[in-house]
């Protein structure tokens, strides 16, 4: 599909949606949001780009094949469960690292955030792989599995 309006709109919408997805990922700690929904919003942005500019541009944007992104996400999520062992706590216990930024501002970094980033990547990779499988001809799929 080639539509000037869609392409012009996508140039504004897709980056905004990506930013929003990161916001959702970040805020998902204690408020509605999180890796899963953030990943879905990010995937919508990528899908929009795919519709406007074609699958090839999506591959350039993603850099890595979707399945590789999903696999890395699964590994990151699984590894986030393990630091608890070093602290002598049970599997998947959340650990927080509170960075003091001065002026009373504290940046809490935690293993649940790492887990959420893993989920975020898994959702992006998984759903993009699904969309790619539906959108593209089998010939292009070969590149997908070549990563």
């Amino acid at each position, binding site marked *: 599909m080639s539509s000037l309006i869609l392409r012009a709109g996508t140039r504004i919408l897709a980056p905004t949606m990506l930013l929003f997805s990161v916001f959702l990922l970040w805020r998902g700690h204690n408020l509605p949001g999180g890796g899963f929904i953030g990943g879905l919003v990010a995937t919508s942005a990528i899908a929009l780009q795919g519709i406007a500019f074609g699958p090839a541009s999506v591959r350039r944007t993603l850099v890595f094949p979707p399945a590789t992104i999903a*696999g890395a996400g699964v590994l990151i999520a*699984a590894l986030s*469960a393990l630091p608890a062992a070093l602290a002598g706590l*049970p*599997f998947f*216990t959340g650990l927080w690292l509170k960075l003091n930024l001065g002026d009373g501002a504290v940046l809490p970094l935690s293993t649940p955030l790492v887990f959420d980033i893993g989920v975020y990547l898994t959702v992006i990779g998984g759903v993009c792989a699904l969309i790619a499988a539906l959108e593209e001809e089998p010939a292009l799929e070969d590149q997908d599995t070549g990563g």
Partner: protein
Amino acid sequence: MMAGWLAAFVLVVPILSAGATTLAQGAPRLQGWLSLLGSYVLLVVSVALLLVVLRDGMVVLQSGNWAAPFGITFAVDSLGAVMTVIAAITGAACLTFGLGEIGEAERRAWFHPLSHVLLLGVCGAFLTGDLFNLYVWFEVMLIASFGLMTVGGTKAQIDGAVKYVALNLVATLMFLLAVALIYGLTGTLNFADIARSVPTVSNVGLLTAAATLLMAAFGMKAAVFPLFFWLPAAYHTPLVSVSAVFAGLLTKVGVYALIRAFTLLFTHDPGWTHTLLLWIAGLTMVTGVLGAAAQTEMRRILSWHIISQIGYMVMGLALATPLGLIGSVFYLVHHIIVKANLFLIAGVAARLTGSMELKRIGGLYRSAPWLGVLFFIPAFSLAGFPPLSGFWAKLVLVRAALEIGSWWIAAAALVTGLLTIYSMTKIWAEAFWKPHPAGEAAARPLGEAPTVMLLPISALAAGTVVIGLFAQPFYVVAERAALELLDPASYIAAVLGGAK
């Protein structure tokens, strides 16, 4: 604490294997090795977990350090640990066999990552101490199995997979409904907490309805009468390594769930639930074995035998005596090894002769006599010949039935055993004894099958012989698992002890 981490690693290892094999999709050799390594590490970890459980008693893991019943609890008793080891053995055997079977096309269809996700779901189901979590692990397992079923992409496979998916979704729906009802009645989904709350539920009728719904859901996954139709429609279509894992493990997860539900959770009305289970057991045995008698394709015959064997396992549960449960646990272990092996052997036989269809093959005894020996061991163990593993399993179950005077179920078990011999003899006579219809040269010698296929078959056959000849230690473990199952109070104490 350390033991809890050991249980966690039973889940972490297959997740890491799935992730790593996904990343290695572009490097075939590396992916194969990673996959194999993952399956053997899982075997080592699960054996270590079993040893710890046998030494120190139940292992309870409150993940995320959230106390039960609020967090996600994993509770590993002897049965759970034994099942995990058997799952890991089957996984390792079938992935080793797969090295010889998986071509580039199958590899590209994500055979390796999906296999590890399947093992993850199976192990999770055996370890979890929470009803909703059990549902999640069932889903993990099913989604992977949907993918594995269509690896290869032939028309027959897609046909089988569609039936498999549709009927399993019905079971999933029933499972969810039962979960919702149970949550409404007891206000909890933690196994131990449900077990504690069940005696205080005033609406016993609705509770029994929920229990029956759960029985139907697990029964469909376990392929018991009359909910088994999806199994023979699907199991003869996938790759041999896939169908061997399915045949060995998947239905047994349903049996495991039945055992868990009707020893720990719902023992409030055994007059209804356990009588129903006993009827189901008898009918499952007989219909399964009769169905097998009508088939002429190797994997179809074996699939129908899965159904009849499930009947034996449910029978021990339905009797609800210590001896009955010992029989069920022993049968589970024996059956998974024997059945996975028979599917693998059928795969090699088809490779050497060109088909799974008995009418079109033959001559294997002349061309590959050792395959005959390898087939003889699991086949006659399945039929219950002494001194193989199946003999002890059947002996314990029949004795358990006679002990409490259930004559008809004992008779059904014996008749089913007899008819099993008929089917095994049929495979023997057709595939091994009679000459190959296309001439003597059409049956190839055993040397033409890859060694990686013969190794797991020999190892599993050796396991069958060992269980048969040295049954005592296996019996002791089964007895311990059975006694734990009959003592829900200590399960509840182990899980909720800290929370009270």
